[in-house]
């Protein structure tokens, strides 16, 4: 390694903490929004005097057409948008991991059916399903929407967990644990789950990024979080009609959305490079770069030993 590449890597390491810090700042602001925001998010301050006022010292982000303070709304929006995305992703990771574990440990006939079901579910466009449900169910409360988004977002995680567990079960430590008489639930919990954690962290981080954008999009269409609740998407929707004259209503929540998504993606990239999920399972996949955030390609399935004796032996 020559001097210049060392310099590059050290500057890269020095910059590593910046996205973490910014993301932490977003999270802290979201948590403390009720205490730091200058006004209540739904308060109409002065409908005649402060209607769509441009940014000023007392209202740094201006006010919207209902004379509400945009800064306060963006801060509360962070609370709703980030909280929503985080909650939905936690739900989908839990469901996805459980389903993936059940699939990997299930008897082979059942397991094949469960795998096929995931492949099919992954091929149906998620946004279409979400739009259809919101159309037929009508406006949903925030928790209901979170449930819907969480329960339509776990398929990729399930697929990844299944593939990863298949590979892990063939490794020596798993075989050794099994030979010592460790039962399947304990094998999964104590021996395999820690190996899944890095992958789940990577997928989860990318999923949070996607879900923030998804919420903003749905709310922008009027089918997500419902006004007057402040989320970045609903503020964008409020300002979309008057984007030319009152740019401050859309600019700030827009920047917040893009910033949060970008930070999550940077973090996801960093985590992926750090943990290199391809190597976690000890299998040498053909294309390590493609593992995170998409499912492993069929190439890997092809090259892996088909349902080996190890696998069937690992069940009691």
């Amino acid at each position, binding site marked *: 390694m020559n001097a210049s*590449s060392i310099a*590059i890597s050290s500057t890269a390491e020095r910059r590593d903490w910046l996205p973490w810090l910014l993301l932490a700042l977003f999270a802290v602001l979201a948590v403390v929004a009720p205490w730091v925001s200058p006004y209540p998010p739904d308060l109409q301050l002065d409908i005649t005097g402060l209607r769509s006022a441009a940014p000023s010292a007392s209202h740094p982000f201006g006010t919207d057409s209902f004379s509400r303070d945009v800064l306060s709304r963006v801060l509360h929006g962070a609370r709703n948008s980030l909280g929503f995305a985080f909650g939905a992703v936690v739900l989908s990771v839990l469901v996805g991991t459980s389903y993936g574990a059940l699939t990997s440990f299930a008897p082979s006939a059942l397991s094949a059916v469960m795998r*096929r079901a995931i*492949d*099919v*579910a*992954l*091929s*149906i*466009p*998620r*946004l*279409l*399903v979400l*739009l*259809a*449900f*919101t*159309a*037929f*169910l*009508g406006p949903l409360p925030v928790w209901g929407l979170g449930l819907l988004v969480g329960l339509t977002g776990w398929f990729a995680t399930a697929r990844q967990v299944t593939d990863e567990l298949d590979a892990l079960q063939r490794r020596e430590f798993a075989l050794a644990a099994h030979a010592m008489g460790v039962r399947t639930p304990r094998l999964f919990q104590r021996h395999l789950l820690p190996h899944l954690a890095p992958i789940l962290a990577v997928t989860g981080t990318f999923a949070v*990024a996607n879900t923030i*954008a998804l919420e*903003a*999009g749905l709310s*922008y*269409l009027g*089918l997500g979080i419902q006004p007057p609740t402040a989320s970045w998407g609903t503020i*964008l929707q409020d300002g*979309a009609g008057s*984007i*030319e004259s009152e740019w401050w209503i*859309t600019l700030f929540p*827009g920047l917040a*959305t*893009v910033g949060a*998504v*970008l930070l999550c*993606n*940077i973090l996801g*990239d960093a985590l992926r490079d750090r943990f290199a999920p391809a190597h976690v399972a000890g299998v040498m996949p*053909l*294309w*390590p*770069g*493609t593992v995170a955030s*998409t*499912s492993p*390609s*069929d*190439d890997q399935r*092809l090259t892996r030993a088909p349902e080996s004796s190890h696998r069937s032996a690992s069940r009691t």
Partner: protein
Amino acid sequence: MFSRRLLARTWQCALVILSAATLAFLCLHLAPGDPASALGENVTPEVRARMRALYGFDEPLLTQYVRWLGALLRGDLGWSTQQQRPVSAVLADALPNTLMLIVPAFALSAAIGMLVGAWQGVHARSRRDRITSNVLLVIYSVPEFWLAMALMLLFARTWQVLPATGVTSEMHAYMSTGDQLLDRLRHLVLPLTSVTLIGVATFARYQRNSMRDTVGQPFVRTATASGLPRSRVLRGAWRASVLPVITLGGILLPSYLAGVIFVEQIFSWPGLGYVLLRAIAARDYAVVAASVVLGSTLTALGAWLAEWLREQADPRLRTASLSDSPSKSAAAEHA
């Protein structure tokens, strides 16, 4: 003719469409109200019962489900209450507009993304690679609707160089053929750019990693060591690195459809997404259900095509599919 993998993919296609149809059916039944409740208060129970019988709502759910599937197969998608014409006619008008957007967007973003990504992969970790990666990551992180709004604000409203909405302008019918074509192209630029840019960023991100890993592989080193010109080595490496990206292309299709829905809404582009969102607003349930089925069908067909393409690009898969089915080849020998 078709390999076993492709045949399996065909079955999966059918399963996807069936699942989407089932989902749409369940949604239709989740929706509040049936034809009987739409009649109002002053109707006797007998009339209500007749109405329900007329539309088959008194039959068991399974019978209704089978009938729904049968109707779908015949292309009978129901009646649009909003537009007062068959749903199939509504969707037939919208489909070409969506395809006009999604097919060029997909092709362009795949081509540009693969080129940029391969170039980055060869120069991985260099300064230009890092700068390009950062730019692409920012584009990748921008939600489609936000990018579309920004493009529209800049090019259509502030600088007014391109039209903001619609497929054609009002004077379209009075133009010469050449001007008509130009008019259509000008309308296409902004929506197409919105969908394509994000697609380029996605493709390039994956192609970069794939190319970076391929360039480090032994066969590339061997080729270089044997004195092949660098361009030929890289061409070979690119061919190998492109395979997982083709798979990714199949996986990406649903997200393209999602992007197109937002972009159509913003540019008032009368495609499937536009029609779907109008239908949702008007509670036109038949159109919503049919859109879900049609959207999933498109995605499934696209995924099938990606699989076929991958098989064309990767000779290993073709040989694998041959050795996969020894019984078939044995049968061929005995014939």
